[in-house]
């Protein structure tokens, strides 16, 4: 099991109490499941119908996982998972 850090946007701090979480898992998917087990409300805010909500991007280190088409990506110690929200308008 690898140990990683999950970084959340500031707007979620009011909802789940933190912007940084230590998570473990063999894959990114398992690490997110660990985060949801620690904070059940987090799954409600990040997922809809079992998938990441449409305006959320999940990066594993510098890589946008949407480009990979799967969350079954291997995790290694020290990885950083970052949740971004889409921002647009003007």
């Amino acid at each position, binding site marked *: 099991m690898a140990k990683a850090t999950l970084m959340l946007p500031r707007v979620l701090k009011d909802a789940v109490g933190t912007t940084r979480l230590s998570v473990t898992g063999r894959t990114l998917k398992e690490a997110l499941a660990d985060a949801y087990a620690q904070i059940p*409300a987090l799954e409600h805010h990040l997922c809809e119908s079992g998938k990441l909500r449409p305006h959320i991007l999940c990066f594993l280190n510098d890589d946008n996982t949407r480009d990979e088409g799967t969350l079954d990506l291997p995790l290694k110690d020290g990885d950083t998972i970052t949740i971004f929200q889409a921002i647009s308008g003007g």
Partner: protein
Amino acid sequence: MADRVVVTVGTKRGLFLLESNARRKDWKVEGPYLKGWQIYHAVLDARGTPRVHAAGSSEVFGSSAFSSGRKKIKFEGAKRPPKAPDLLPKALKVAKKYGCNTSKRLWHIEPGRASERGVLYAGTAPAGLFRSEDDGRTWQSVEGLLRHPSRKDWMVGYGGMCLHSIQLDPRDEKRMIVAISAAGSFRTEDGGKTWKPINKAVSKFKGAPKNEQVGTCVHKLLMHPAKPGRVYQQNHVGVYQSDDYGDTWQPIHAGLPFDFGFGLALNPADPDACYVVPLDPEGYTFRATPGAMKVYRWNAKKKTWTALERGLPGDGACVSVLREGMANDTLDPCGVYVGTGSGTVFQSADAGRSWKAAAMHLPPVLSVSAAVV
């Protein structure tokens, strides 16, 4: 005399708190709190140690119920937030056809009765009713309403299908009325197990389903706390009064410039009064005041409306007031509050005779609510 009046102002960009003393002359504005969340409704729960509860929604992260003490504001999201149900096929088809909002939002939070410490109710879009028994940390669906056989005919409005009004009978712990746009109003007399549609003789909107029980577009419903049975509703089509908890309704909109509007407020000391802001539903001011902002006060004894405009903007004012955008406090004379889409909260401390802006230049106001602590 009460010490403080707190007005919670939910906006498209967070929550603001307005506080004044019982004279309600000068207002201190705090906020924004919950930045990044659209606050469809918020309320100061004055039972016991005051707490602020807010219904927050985000286009990115869904919605949650937030809660904080009043003395030191530090919001926490629900551990298990209310999860709005899915739209059923008929409503989903209409929503797609007309581009109605189908996103899942938390719409309204209502504190339980004084005897029900820790109990809160919440309404969602799509329509669902939820109950918390731990001050909003966890929420359970009130399944009796979702199982109502008329639900297959509940319809969406342009803003979605929201359960926006939750009214608890202070004399009967088993009686509650909820209102859903665009389905209608429902009453339970057994604590939420079974629900009776109470929409008889209320006008239907164009294209409403041919179901005798539902198909009315109630925009806001309030039960008067002092007069048993007295209920008012501002509907998409008219304003109505009931004296039997909604079994029958009398249209009372004759005399208003428009029967269309969203918000509604009461005078706790006078069951024969209610307040509305009629909006022009058509034309260039679509769903806005028609060039002057006026609040109208109903007198049920005389069956007349009085236009209240002293201190409100004329001179071409086209402002919108949403369904959670009006509120009253419980002082006598009562305070009345109106939040506008242009970011102003107008306030009267004399039951509507005169008005002034308590706060200006806020983000678009979605909701106001007032409490005396």
